[in-house]
């Protein structure tokens, strides 16, 4: 009974909303819904909108660097923690801590740290290195990388914990065999341990990917999409057009495009899962 009830709620509010958004994307709705069907006009407008294209490109740049960076950094931390270091739980807490901080706070703190006048650059210059320059936050060509830095800082701890849990699940006998064969540690990890952890890594990738597609709060707190439109993201595009620019139709088209985009990105994962099961 309860299951059916909740399934009903999910169906109505979740899939119902998606369907309604899809319908809205085919109308010329502005502030309030308008149910006159106009076909794919909004999608044509969307894909000729310069800001949307920049947003999509930014999502790809940010997504690739963020996922690869977080995975690499988180895995490295997990491997170190897996070597039974002293005070492991202390380090684990320290590295997991950023995750407890909301993305807005993360973004604001990094904005302060990277602010060329009041942040790191100002501090180092104040200590006497007058020529020290680190103004990525305000450089339109580099601002996107500051988002990557903040994102990795925020999520690496989570990945560390997940990978560490996976590493702890590795059979002791396997380690015994590795030791007996005298395989160097780095090769053991790269060629024996990690290949057996594919499902764990895949879950990490899916988790991080959802961060990328949702990517809104970090951008709002750190760069507000600027300088110019250098760090705009699709989610911000949709929110801006829904509310500030009162263009429900175009914003819905953007949302549907994001949904399709994320399904496309996840397709390889589903495909490989499906193939293994059959």
């Amino acid at each position: 009974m309860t299951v059916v009830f909740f399934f009903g709620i999910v169906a109505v509010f979740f899939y119902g909303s998606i369907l309604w958004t899809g319908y809205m994307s085919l109308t010329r709705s502005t502030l309030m819904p308008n149910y006159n069907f106009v076909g794919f006009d909004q999608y044509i407008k969307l894909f000729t909108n310069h800001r949307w294209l920049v947003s999509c490109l930014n999502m790809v740049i940010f997504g690739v660097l963020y996922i690869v960076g977080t995975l690499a950094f988180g895995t490295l931390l997990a491997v170190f923690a897996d070597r039974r270091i002293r005070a492991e739980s202390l380090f684990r807490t320290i590295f997991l801590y950023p995750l407890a901080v909301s993305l807005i706070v993360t973004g604001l703190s990094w904005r302060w740290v990277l602010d060329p006048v009041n942040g790191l650059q100002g501090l180092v210059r104040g200590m006497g290195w007058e020529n020290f320059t680190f103004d990525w936050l305000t450089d339109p060509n580099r601002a996107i990388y500051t988002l990557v830095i903040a994102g990795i800082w925020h999520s690496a701890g989570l990945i560390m914990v997940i990978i560490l849990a996976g590493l702890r699940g590795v059979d002791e006998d396997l380690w015994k065999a590795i030791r007996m064969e005298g395989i160097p540690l780095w090769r053991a990890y790269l060629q024996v341990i990690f290949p057996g952890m594919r499902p764990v890594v895949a879950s990490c990738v899916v988790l991080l990917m959802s961060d990328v597609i949702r990517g809104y709060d970090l951008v709002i707190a750190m760069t507000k999409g600027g300088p110019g439109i250098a760090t705009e993201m699709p989610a911000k595009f949709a929110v801006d057009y829904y509310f500030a620019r009162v263009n429900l139709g175009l914003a819905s088209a953007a949302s549907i495009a994001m949904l399709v985009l994320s399904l496309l990105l996840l397709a390889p994962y589903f495909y490989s899962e499906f193939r293994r099961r059959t």
Partner: protein
Amino acid sequence: MKFRHLLSTMTILGTFAASSPALAQTVDVQHYWTSSSESKAMNTIADSFKQRGGKWIDSPSADFDAALAAATSRIAGGQPPSAILMTPSSALRDLASSGQLRDFDDLAAKGGWQKVMAPIVWDKLNVDGHLVALPVGVHAQNWVWYSKPVLEKLKISEPKTFDELFAAADKIKASGGIGIATGGEPWQQVGILYSAFLALGGPEYWNELIVKRSPEALKSPVLTQAFDIFRKVSTYADPASPGRSWNDTTNLVVTDKAGFQFMGDWARGEFLAAGKVAGKDFGCLLTPAEKPGYAILIDVFAFPVNTDDDRIKGQTLLADSIMEPAVQEKIAEVKGSVPSRTDVDTSKLDTCAQIGSKTLATPGAAVQAAYDALAGDLNGQVTDLAGQFWTDKSMTTQAAVESFSNILQSE
């Protein structure tokens, strides 16, 4: 079983909610006036309203967009606020034509409001022949503010042309200050671009370009000149400029760290809030032009249709409070706007506000600011373009003018 339990709980809660007694004439005001001068202005209205016996519920948002977003969500969700602070933009027209707004035709006829408002203001408040918004004050976008001490120290007199202004800014820059303080948000940047259009082209050209969007106006050399001036202003941006809010930017001029700022006259409110006096501590001019225009932005309250009797009465009471001449005068005094009623005593307003109300009264000088005049999301698209042109120095003026023309012709 569980389901029935849930239902009965919901019924009980519902009964509680419905039976809460209506005590006073209530308004729930969705607004975004949060800077120091703005909150003073909002308090002026709230105090006058409370004195008349009303109950004020304050629902502030961080900025303009957020306030409108909250208001539309509440309307769509069936719990509309009593009043929304906004400007007569396409959003107001959308709300009004979908029947979401209460009209004040009866109160306007009784109070003779049409006679005491400038025609351009009155026109913007009416949609399909109904008065759907009440004005709080009239702002203009195309102002330049400067620090008197900074200019006096370097023996610079008030600039009359863009060339003089840039020469003055260079002098200030050479002396170690910030020549022109600019904020990093695209809406602040696009304001400079619009001011340049208006200054170089004059009010008539502005109406052709922005209001009518005529193809001939897009061929004018004014566009190229304006984008060049815009680019020139961008070169004065200091390293801390990206992302800086408008009031933090104004504060650089207030504290004499910067010489000039291009900003609407809401900036005057920040000078006043810091205890500065117009003409003595700071100066003001309309963007240098042969024929000065006045790009007005009206702060208005719109009143979504409410069904609760208590809240309807609250709206009427709030309407009376807003339209009271004394309240209008006080708001202009603290916020930097010009009163929207022409019968308000302006003698107490400072020199800058005097310039403002004089220009507003000059026939043909007042024009609609782009934010209100441009349909749909055109203003948003121009804002994106301006932000991009500002930061991306490799984008040529020619390319910018071309994109601009494409945007204006896209609807």
